[in-house]
């Protein structure tokens, strides 16, 4: 059984106290768990039920509703590429295809792929379109020319 750290437990308790019903605290509690473990799986949900009295069904409803909660261990580097209108006009499709190419080169070399690529809605920086996140780092004006260099910084 995966055990929550004392700091995490303390945080969860403080969220649970904050609301009238425990169920109301599920969102922030899940955020804390994802911060610590990078994803949320059955073990975490069952621990929440056992140690904190949150119904497992209620928790799972929330986890599966929001795609921002990950139910599987993510790759080391998550690329979130904006595929909304402004970035689309500025060439999201081409850059994403370039990233796919880059990622498939790992397969040819039989190396383990440290990246995952997802299209996400607007990142709120249309002025720097196309925009992307690699984990917590933000990149603006990403293009076919510079994207490979950016990604290579992460995997050397």
């Amino acid at each position, binding site marked *: 059984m995966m055990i929550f750290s004392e700091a995490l437990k303390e945080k969860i308790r403080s969220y649970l106290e904050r609301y009238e019903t425990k169920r109301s605290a599920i969102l922030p509690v899940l955020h804390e768990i994802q911060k610590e473990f990078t994803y949320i799986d059955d073990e975490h949900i069952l621990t929440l039920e056992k140690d904190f009295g949150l119904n497992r*069904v209620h928790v*799972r409803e929330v986890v599966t*509703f929001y*795609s921002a909660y990950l139910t599987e261990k993510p790759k080391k580097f998550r690329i979130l590429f904006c595929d909304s209108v402004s970035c689309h006009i500025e060439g999201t499709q081409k850059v994403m295809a370039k990233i796919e190419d880059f990622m498939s080169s790992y397969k040819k070399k039989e190396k383990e792929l440290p990246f995952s690529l997802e299209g996400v809605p607007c990142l709120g920086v249309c002025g720097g379109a196309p925009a992307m996140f690699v984990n917590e780092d933000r990149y603006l004006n990403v293009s076919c020319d510079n994207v490979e260099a950016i990604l290579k910084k992460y995997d050397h």
Partner: protein
Amino acid sequence: MGTVETKEEVTFKLNGIDVTVPKGTTVMAAAKREKVAIPHFCWHPGLSVAGVCRFCMVKVKGRPKLEISCNLEATPGMEVDTVSDEVKDSHKWALEFHLANHPLDCPICDQAGECGLQKYYMSVGKYNSQMTEEKVLKPKALDVGDKLVLDTERCILCSRCVRFENEVTKTGGLGIFDRGDRAIIGTYGDEKITHNYQENLVDICPVGAFTSKEFRFKQRVWFLKEKSSICPGCSTGCAVSIHAKPEMETYFRVKPRYDKKVNGHWMCDKGREILSGLDKKERLENSYLQDQDEFSTCERPDMINHLNSLLSRFRGKKISLLVSAQYTNEEYERLFSFFVEKMGVRSIFQWRSKEEKLNDFDGILLRGDRNPNTRGLLDALRKFHILKEVENEFEACLTSSSDLIFAFSPLLSSSFSSFEEDLARLSKLKSCVCLFTTSYQARDYIGFNSLIPLVSFPEKTGHYTNYKGEKRELEGAYPSFIHEGFDVCELVNELDSNIKASLRA
């Protein structure tokens, strides 16, 4: 819940007619009371308001948009319209969206005939579908409980079942997972629902998503007849209706009937097991007389004569009655007025289950006393000045050295785990034992003097008195398909008139 109990009242206009309802009543509940049909899926009078199906749209004069009536409190002077073209149009398109991903597999669906989608398509739909998109495929025929099968494709996500689990049984076993057109109802992982109120989920599901394992594929619902009765499964006395197909001589299912005071909208799964043992092949169909270690059948008049001759033969000797608490008040009344007042019988024993835990209660409906009429039996005995407490006197009856015992067996062997054992011990007594029963099993115990077939609870009218002392009426009776079966009152009447005749002679 639809209505709130207050004395204050409000008057509003529903389709131009003044309607007065208690303050706090929703337009939906008021319309239901006034028999104005507003189509709805997610609203259920026994559950909280969810407002998710967006089907029960009405127009309120002076407000710009249509509103859902299930979450709309009636206020003084409000003018509500449920029949205008605008409202009808909204119902039609709401239905089209509900059916967007529905598989339309009515020919193989068990809900057909009592399905909300079918009903509303005919009353408010009748559109030509404009959907050309592929339907979203979802898991089917999931085993989600001991008594449940779930088809998530047929589900319209009304969330009645989720609210039932959260509010009534408080088990929280069901949830809506995922999102949008991929959203499905389900349990956590492969878990199963195990509580004693599962079949209520089948009842409240407005479509064919939850179906009953027990009833699945047994019968089309439009062939079933329905009669109001009272559940004899325990001392709560839930109002139920029994669904049967008389021409097939088969009982198919039990459903709860709304009764505000006793069971509300629900009943337990134990109560739905009362039909076991009612099949023709499990019933005692004929009268049997024991003759040299063999039972031979006899006609009804012969059995009456036989019982009468026994009664005269044992006149002045010790005659006992052994009765279970599963008969109606009327039957007890008739039985005791004959045996106690006419025949002077004073030794009456209660035949109860060995394993019963009288004071058990599951917090919702099911009680430990698995007899429907313990109170009625005690009241009747008291009326004839025989003072009794609730206790199992089966052992006392065995050791009472009675010469003649008239044993009225439990009618529901399902709530009597020691039934066969009791029969075996009773049949080995030296006394002359006449067994009045519905169970075919009795034929295996050769020691009885005679076996008298009885009609069972769906086949009689009368009253039970429940644990609170409320009279519960068995309203409708099916004609018994046990043609040789006796009704207790009729049987006693015949014995009585025969005795009178023999005294006169």
